[in-house]
């Protein structure tokens, strides 16, 4: 990207496309800030999908039945796919994929705070599907109308798959709630541990989210963090009631005047700590991602060598044809 001042007509054209609610495409002129903001957001989103495989993958080998294992495998594979759709979108903005991976393992770019919490029991798998994927859906559905075409299209693809994630989790929890007293206790315990971190997934409160206004003006974001958080709470309370679990917030109650549920204060100090790298599993998550990357180096090497050898052979064979 050159930083010379653009022709006013290019900038005007960009603004017009946004104003008409049309999509910006990769080869269009766009302001540096728009490109940077998007690369940061899309990369962060991609990293979250990739790191997000770990908490659930923790239970694949110990799933209680073949059915649950097959479901969990498919779900974790989807999350890998989500990460790759998003890296693909980031590349259309000029980001380099290998560099993005390095940015993640060198902690130069962040991922969602939620994946730094441990999965202590199998009920956690269900609660992640219900609450974490549920919150992700709230976040992602409006992003299907994000102003950058490749990001919006990636989101459409992702949202189609998320519904399976949430439903398998909720069904798992319903099964456990219909089981023994111990199983019900596990579900309640997992709900207690994941509820507040799920609310933090929407990011800092609006008064403390300096980039929101610009992102909304550019239509990268369509709703503020607090709007989406409220929407999630309103959707989730009746689901918790149907399931028979209590959400761990004594201040949670319907507010007739607002037409929304009121809820208690989020522990933003905890959020800041987790984002800063001091959550319960940050070190472990990054170490595992780094290990996977480094252990895979020989595979990448071998594949590249094989491809180069074949290309050379092929070129030799067909040299006479041309």
């Amino acid at each position, binding site marked *: 990207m050159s930083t010379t001042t653009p022709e006013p007509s290019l900038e005007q054209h960009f603004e017009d496309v946004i104003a008409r609610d049309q999509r910006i495409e990769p080869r269009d002129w766009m302001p540096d800030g728009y490109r940077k903001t998007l690369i940061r957001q899309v990369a962060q989103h991609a990293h979250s999908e990739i790191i997000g495989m770990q908490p659930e993958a923790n239970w694949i080998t110990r799933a209680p039945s073949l059915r649950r294992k097959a479901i969990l495998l498919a779900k974790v594979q989807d999350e890998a796919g989500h990460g790759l759709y998003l890296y693909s979108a980031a*590349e259309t903005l000029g980001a380099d994929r290998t560099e993005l991976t390095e940015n993640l393992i060198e902690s130069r770019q962040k991922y969602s705070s939620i994946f730094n919490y441990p999965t202590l029991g199998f009920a956690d798998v269900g609660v992640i599907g219900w609450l974490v994927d549920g919150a992700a859906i709230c976040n992602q559905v409006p992003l299907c109308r994000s102003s950058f075409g490749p990001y919006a*299209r990636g989101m459409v*693809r992702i949202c189609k798959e998320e519904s399976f994630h949430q439903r398998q989790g909720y069904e798992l929890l319903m099964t456990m709630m219909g089981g023994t007293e111990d199983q019900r206790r596990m579900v309640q315990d997992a709900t207690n541990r994941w509820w507040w971190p799920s609310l933090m997934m929407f990011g800092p409160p609006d008064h403390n989210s300096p980039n929101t206004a610009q992102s909304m003006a550019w239509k990268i974001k369509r709703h503020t963090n607090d709007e989406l958080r409220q929407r999630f709470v309103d959707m989730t309370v009746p689901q918790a009631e149907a399931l028979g679990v209590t959400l761990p917030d004594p201040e949670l109650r319907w507010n007739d005047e607002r037409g929304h549920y009121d809820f208690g204060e989020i522990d933003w100090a905890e959020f800041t700590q987790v984002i800063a790298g001091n959550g319960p599993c940050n070190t472990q998550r990054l170490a595992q991602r780094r290990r996977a990357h480094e252990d895979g180096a020989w595979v990448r090497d071998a594949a*590249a060598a094989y491809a180069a050898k074949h290309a050379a052979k092929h070129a030799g064979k067909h040299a006479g044809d041309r």
Partner: protein
Amino acid sequence: MAEHREIRAGWPLFEVFVRSKRGLNHVHVGSLRAADAEMALRHARDLYTRRNEGVSIWVVKSSDIAASSPDEKDPFFAPSADKVYRHPTFYDIPEHVPHM
């Protein structure tokens, strides 16, 4: 580090096109990195057609694609914007004519 650079160069970007069902065109769905076309096809199957989204896949090295700017101000597209008569809505047909 020098080795890493080489690997980067060795994994080109491929654009993926999927025919979602018989009778439809292949449509661009995204991209991926792969060592060669064969690996790109396998990865494309795993990445873009996990739920029967496709009956046929094309992969093309991104560097082999020639593209005009999609920007609608581009004169490349001017001829088509000019020729409104290419569109069915250009023609007024009376209400009582069926199946038009």
